[in-house]
């Protein structure tokens, strides 16, 4: 009886949404005009070079009855979200017509416009008003929303102190209180824990009972089967099929299987468990360690085992400060791994993966690092056995620390990271990468000419400075896309020495290994006189050493005789990236590939 009534309701009702022959085109300009100069130049040329038109939606037509729940499924990039945005009146259609009867509420994202500096209450009002609620509505519904979110007592706390879960709850509770006849929901059900998802589902059921029209974009076919009356299967911007959910989901599953996109949940689980993270440890420049200095190189060493081929592996990392446990900071989410300078597309067997952080930007404290591997093409599935954590401690600052430690841990995301697979050959010949052993090998390679040290800057530091400099310990940082293998001192006749006469030229050679093609590298050497406090610096900044380097090689820099007085000298050596935005300054601080600070020594007598 009730069912019949419902059926009647749906069939006799008028259309809530009518889409007729909808086309949507995007223009992707490869060189986005964002400055006036370029705009003027383009205008003068009267041409739009490099523009590409893409049809995101092609000939889409469908109706949605009032009170109906319709699902939209399709693989990534099939135009689901674009369709939702056109329906929401955010994007205008290029061709065709969209008719909407009733008030719409697009729920494309939770917590749009949330401001961390405002309190939860203020954010609730802000977000609610952006969702189209008036102040009076919000005043009326305020208590309901707070109760629903279970955040009573936190409403006067600034949002920045909320955990991401609390933020999500606040966003969701506000969003579901919108006053609309048609809800356009993008897949926010995918976020949050199971309890939260359950709550979302219940709320959607409630909406259905209230007779609201729902358009739901989802990847999750089980979800679509559960709540959608009808489903649209979008493929490359056009409707491939439309009809009852059960039928469409089957078609979609077939399609996905054929294209290798989707396996049943059970199959997936068995296979996914075969990928395992067997070892996880942390290293600084000296080797395995648990305590670190901020500013130093920080290496995460991972050993993965897998009996199947992992396609497109990506690694996610989070850092959590254990003291308050609250701050969970995404370090680097889903970053591809590089193997021999190329993105690694397949992993199998045992793989050692190194994540090298050029410098550690966190302050003193105890932290926890969480690592996991996932497969970006396969619906971003996290392999369950790869999720592991390890704690570490930061005890102080290294000499470079001051430059790196940022007040906000959020900056952690911005530091340069290299994620590389150490190939098996390398692992076996591990000893070889230690300096000295491969000198002969390197001599055969094309040598880069000597750079005469014409532009030596001689700085004499005061005694106070000197003391400060010498107190600092030797250290190393840099993210290792280029490694310095060794630094050695030679005389004019290319004889290796550590003791030089006063009237001899000193040639300092940097042995490097570039793991990928690096453009305009800058090599730099600093020399500190132990007793005199002399500080010399020379680099190849303005003299191109080489347009680009890759593989192993040597750069030598010469100090003319007479420049150095009798002393014991400590040598720092580094390779830096040329940064076009700061051609003259700061290149050292921001972009070291590798930097040894005061690690080598020679003497002039």
């Amino acid at each position: 009886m009730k069912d019949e009534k419902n059926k009647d309701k749906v069939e006799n009702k008028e259309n809530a949404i009518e889409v007729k022959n909808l086309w949507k085109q995007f223009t992707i300009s490869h060189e986005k005009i964002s400055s006036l100069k370029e705009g003027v130049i383009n205008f003068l040329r009267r041409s739009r070079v490099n523009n590409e038109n893409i049809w995101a939606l092609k000939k889409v037509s469908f109706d949605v009855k009032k009170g109906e729940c319709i699902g939209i499924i399709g693989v990534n990039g099939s135009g689901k979200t674009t369709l939702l945005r056109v329906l929401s009146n955010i994007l205008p259609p290029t061709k065709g017509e969209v008719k909407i009867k009733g008030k719409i509420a697009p729920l494309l994202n939770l917590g749009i416009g949330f401001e961390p500096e405002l309190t939860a209450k203020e954010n609730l009002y802000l977000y609610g008003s952006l969702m189209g609620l008036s102040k009076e509505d919000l005043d009326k519904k305020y208590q309901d929303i707070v109760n629903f979110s279970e955040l009573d007592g936190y409403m006067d706390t600034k949002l920045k102190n909320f955990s991401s879960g609390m933020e999500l709850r606040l966003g969701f509770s506000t969003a579901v209180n919108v006053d609309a006849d048609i809800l356009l929901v993008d897949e926010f059900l995918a976020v949050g824990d199971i309890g939260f998802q359950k709550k979302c589902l219940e709320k959607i059921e409630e909406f259905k009972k209230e007779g609201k029209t729902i358009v739901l974009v989802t990847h999750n076919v089980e979800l679509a089967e559960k709540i959608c009356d009808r489903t649209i299967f979008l493929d490359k911007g056009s409707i491939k099929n439309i009809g009852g959910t059960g039928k469409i989901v089957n078609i979609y599953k077939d399609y996905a299987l054929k294209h290798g996109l989707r396996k049943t949940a059970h199959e997936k689980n068995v296979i996914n468990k075969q990928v395992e993270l067997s070892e996880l440890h942390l290293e600084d420049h000296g080797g395995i360690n648990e305590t670190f200095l901020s500013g130093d190189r920080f290496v995460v060493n991972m050993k993965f085992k897998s009996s199947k081929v992992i396609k497109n592996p990506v690694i996610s990392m989070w850092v959590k400060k254990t003291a308050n446990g609250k701050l969970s900071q995404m370090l680097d989410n889903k970053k591809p791994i590089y193997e021999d300078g190329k993105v690694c597309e397949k992993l199998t067997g045992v793989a050692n993966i190194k994540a090298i952080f050029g410098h550690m930007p966190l302050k003193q404290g105890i932290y926890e690092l969480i690592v996991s591997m996932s497969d970006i093409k396969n619906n971003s599935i996290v392999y369950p056995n790869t999720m592991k954590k390890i704690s570490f401690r930061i005890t102080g600052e290294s000499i470079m620390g001051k430059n790196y430690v940022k007040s906000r841990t959020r900056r952690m995301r911005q530091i340069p990271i290299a994620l590389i697979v150490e190939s098996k050959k390398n692992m076996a010949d591990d000893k070889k990468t230690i300096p000295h052993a491969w000198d002969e090998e390197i001599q055969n390679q094309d040598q880069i000419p000597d750079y005469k040290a014409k532009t030596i800057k001689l700085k004499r530091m005061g005694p106070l400075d000197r003391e400060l400099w010498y107190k600092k310990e030797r250290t190393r940082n840099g993210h290792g896309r280029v490694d310095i293998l060794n630094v050695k001192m030679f005389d004019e006749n290319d004889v290796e020495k550590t003791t030089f006469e006063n009237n001899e030229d000193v040639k300092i050679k940097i042995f490097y290994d570039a793991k990928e093609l690096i453009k305009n590298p800058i090599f730099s050497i600093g020399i500190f006189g132990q007793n005199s406090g002399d500080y010399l610096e020379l680099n190849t900044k303005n003299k191109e050493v080489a347009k680009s380097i890759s593989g192993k090689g040597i750069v030598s820099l010469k100090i003319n005789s007479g420049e150095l007085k009798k002393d014991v000298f400590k040598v720092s050596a580094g390779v830096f990236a040329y940064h076009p935005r700061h051609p003259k300054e700061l290149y050292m601080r921001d972009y070291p590939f590798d930097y040894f600070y005061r690690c080598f020594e020679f003497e002039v007598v």
Partner: protein
Amino acid sequence: MLEELKKLWRYRSTIWIMTTSNLKLKYASSYLGFLWSILEPLLLILVYSLVFPLILKTNFFEWVLFFICGLLPYRFLNIGFVETTRSIVDMRNIIIKTNIPTEVIPISKALSSAITFLLESVVFFSIVFLSGVQPTNFILLFPVLFVTEFFIILGVGFYLSSLFVRFRDLTYILNIAFQALLFLCPIVYTLVMVPEIYRGVYLLNPISRLILLYQSVILHSASSFIEYLPVLENTVVLFIFSIAVLLIGYLQFNKRKHNFAGEL
């Protein structure tokens, strides 16, 4: 257009909540909070008043009062223009993910700078009046001038914010323009100091006129130039001008606003 305005009216509480949020955000993270909006112009006045009365060899006290009357509307204009221009790009998330009318965003930014201006005005102009300047009937024109300036900001802000989506170097140009404007308008010097032959050209600048009007409405002592500038007529003309600016800006904005979500 009427329909657009109706829709906008429905979202009036959104505008208001965004405006207050803007204000809260601006001051929430600093210790002195709202005091800054008083302190900032106060310090500016201090710095300028150490230099200009000496250069111009005028009475220190009179100059400061005169400067206040020019500086406040200038700041309103400056902050309003910059904030509204940036607004669409700054709030890109809201534009691509919600269906509120796009106009809400520049309007709320302009409104929050207007409220800042009003609060500043209350404080500083009461200082002016407490210091012995007698308010005249002309003070009744102050709200008209305020609305005029608000319309100009909103109109130009509409236009510039839609341009800024594509041309991001607009803010640099704006900054330089405002540096120049400080000296192109009678803010640190009086109109009388402008050579007579240039005065006609000088007064073509509507901003100059606006600032002159503020000065003559508040300090009737500065009415020495009223002969060049009859206050009432000018206010009316300027008000009509501002409505025209607002209309043109709004129409331009409306023409482009549908492309924002795609271009951002």
